[in-house]
């Protein structure tokens, strides 16, 4: 297993990229900043598996937590509300 690039607690940003094809980083999170809350493990890259390519290198998968007020400019709920999701390492970059 490759050592995870981002430890639990690391501030991360979902990369601002909008490629076509089968990607699992939701559009609404691109460019948004969150914090790694868990390292899930290493898995096959869905961007390869979706096209029948099964032998590629694995990617580390993380659970990332976001504040809802950071994602949605008009979020009406409390600032404590959060959203958590799983993001593959290729979609993460360090955030300040």
């Amino acid at each position: 297993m490759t050592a995870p690039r981002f430890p639990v607690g690391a501030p991360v940003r979902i990369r601002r990229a909008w490629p076509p094809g089968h990607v699992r980083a939701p559009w609404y999170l691109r460019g948004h900043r969150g914090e790694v809350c868990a390292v899930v493990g290493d898995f096959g890259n869905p961007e390869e598996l979706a096209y029948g390519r099964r032998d590629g290198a694995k990617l580390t998968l993380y659970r990332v937590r976001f504040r809802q007020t950071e994602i949605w400019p008009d979020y009406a709920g409390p600032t404590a509300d959060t959203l958590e999701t799983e993001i593959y390492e290729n979609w993460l970059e360090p955030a300040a």
Partner: protein
Amino acid sequence: MSGDHDDDRHHDHGHGHDHPPGQKHPFQPDLEDSPLSHYQLLQMAVAELMIEKGVFTGEEFRRTLEDIDSRTPAAGARVVARAWIDPAFKARLLADTNKAAAELGIDAGTIPILTVENTPDTHNVIVCTLCSCYPRLLIGLPPDWYKSREYRSRVVREPRQVLAEFGTAIPDGMAVTVHDSTAELRYMVLPMRPAGSEGLDEAALAELVTRDCMVGVTLPKAP
């Protein structure tokens, strides 16, 4: 599926494959008095061809269908009820849900399920915005609304409003956490044990646990 081979409506298919009499016919049309849709025809043709080519057997097909039917929210409810009465089990459930379910004789499969716990501070709700990921082997097939455009679009952005549509009000003093199942995990909510349920046994507790409270759009039933 209704009907077995003694039902004489289906004796003259001419489909050319044999199976023991009395066994349910796997290719029975759903509505005998309507034409089959393109997609029903596609399903039936794919199934027949897969069996003829030996990709899977008719028996495997039947057993898989029975397995699908056997998966209901009752399994998840048992897991929740056990977690409510046994703190050590609850800890194991939160650490490894599939393994904990196996302690109760439930085969939750190999895709890892993560149980997220409701607390006095936090209410959890589950969605898959990109498709329909759902802990099927533990709580059965997802309802239509879970797969709908409306739920998938809105619950990440306005969870409290969506919960209100389900009759669930979360006070502002509690945080709402939405889990978007985008990748390898499936999620189940462990609701808080309802007030006033202290005297109930495990089976009675399980009766309070609905499918919807394990997705997080509602709370368990009151005792």
